[in-house]
């Protein structure tokens, strides 16, 4: 499995489309424990990304540069909590795509592990604090370990996304310790964290995108 710069841009466009569809749901999650804007923020950010993909990045073929530009664009457009978080992820990931028109499976594993770890570092959150890190950390750990063990990209990614999903769902039952919802105490129990949800959506969208990509190719 390989991913060209063209594919990468298409993947980001898929995310932009998906966020338009999911924005109401993400806002609804955020209303329960936050300020109700997570879907709006994701939509604003990914629409800005969508525009730059068609404009400045139209002829860009460096996967690293693309990911950096996507991150910066997202950040500029939204600020918010998720601006720095996702932007850091995208910019850290970019390293494994630097000066590459095509990313191979190892590059992609490195990309997503760096993405997840970059976010964690930026937000300084630990697993169990009811944030997107609950999705991202198990995802990165599984992806890294499985791929090292099996060298099978799709299988590893599938496992990792499954653990991401578990992590996302676990946020329902825990008390928030970070971000807006951390002031809620017990009242945050029962609500799934919006950021953990959008992070899962992105990862699972990549899984589907990559699978599709490889079926088309083969």
């Amino acid at each position: 499995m390989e991913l060209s710069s063209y594919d990468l841009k298409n993947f980001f466009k898929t995310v932009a489309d998906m966020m338009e569809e999911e924005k109401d749901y993400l806002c609804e999650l955020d209303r329960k424990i936050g300020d109700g804007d997570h879907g709006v923020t994701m939509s604003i950010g990914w629409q800005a990304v969508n525009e730059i993909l068609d404009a400045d990045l139209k002829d860009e073929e460096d996967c690293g540069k693309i990911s950096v530009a996507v991150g910066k664009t997202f950040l500029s457009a939204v600020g918010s909590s998720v601006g720095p978080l996702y932007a850091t992820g995208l910019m850290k990931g970019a390293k494994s795509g630097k000066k590459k028109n095509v990313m191979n499976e190892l590059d992609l594993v490195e990309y997503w592990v760096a993405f997840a770890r970059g976010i964690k570092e930026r937000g300084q959150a630990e697993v169990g604090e009811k944030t997107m890190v609950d999705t991202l950390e198990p995802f990165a750990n599984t992806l890294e370990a499985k791929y090292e063990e099996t060298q099978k990209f799709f299988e590893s990614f599938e496992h990792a996304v499954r653990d991401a999903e578990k992590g996302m769902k676990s946020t329902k039952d825990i008390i928030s310790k970070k971000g807006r919802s951390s002031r809620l105490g017990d009242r945050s129990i029962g609500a799934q964290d919006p950021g953990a949800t959008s992070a899962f959506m992105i990862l699972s969208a990549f899984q589907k995108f990559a699978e599709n990509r490889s079926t088309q190719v083969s």
Partner: protein
Amino acid sequence: MKKLINDPRRVVEEMVEGYVHAHPDYIKQLPENERALVTARDTKEGKVGILIGGGSGHEPGFLGYVGEGMADGVAVGNIFASPSPDPILEVTKTIDKGAGVAYLYGNYAGDVMNFGMAAEMADLEEDIEVGMALASDDVASAPKEEKEKRRGIAGEFFIYKAAGAAADFGYNLEEVIRVANKANAQTRSMGVGISPCYLPQTGEPSFEIGDDEMEIGLGHHGEPGIEKGQLESADSVAERLVGDILNDIEITEGDDVAVLVNGLGSTPRMDLYIIYRKVEQILKDRGIQIYRSYVGDYITSLEMGGCSVTLMKLDEELKQTISHPVDCPMFVQK
């Protein structure tokens, strides 16, 4: 949801446009970034620059407080979302007069990350010294022992006022930050919500609340509070809010305070003054002296209903900052 707006996706741009056109002798937009606004007046060389910012939807917070005696510039975020580092950095570059820039903002995950990134960039790329002071005045948002985890609400106004005055007094950056931190340490707020606001883009109420309920301790973005209760009389609400504050910070007979009764957006001044009446009675009964009072919409949450009470315990230095004149588009003090 009913609003007098055009495209919900463009409310911030259009508000800012209206704002800078309404007050051209007070404020201007930087050509580099439309979310970066700075004072239109000349600022003294060598004065510490005061930079404020945060999400939109809190007007007069934050853009309304750019002017003489308060902030030199503001970075404007999306609704209820921290501004990104770009406008913060642009404002920083413009308002630095060689003495560095103080960033004043509320303690929210998003603001901490975005202002933090901007400060790094100011240091690395522009070689501008930046100091930071975070507002964490909301008693409801974390226990006493973890004050540093608390979020900033209406008390931010006092912190801007204090730091803005300190900068005018000619204090250096370290001293301005010291005053801002002292103001924050001496300030406590407690709020109550009785009706939600509506994000223009979703049209949904920010929280659900029954016809006879109030949300005690809610955040000023509609984040749930610590407790839902029966809607009570203004006097009981005032007692609850002031009570929680006085349980949190020692303010006793003979102490001086500044008082802010802040409306969240749709609460009539009538109701705010009725709340104030009781606040004053409670303080008077305890022999606490009111140095100056502010009653009105100072930091809002769109059209949310409810109010907050803020007390700042004053020493001589803070009194001076409170008395310092201010001339901003949305707040003037002689």
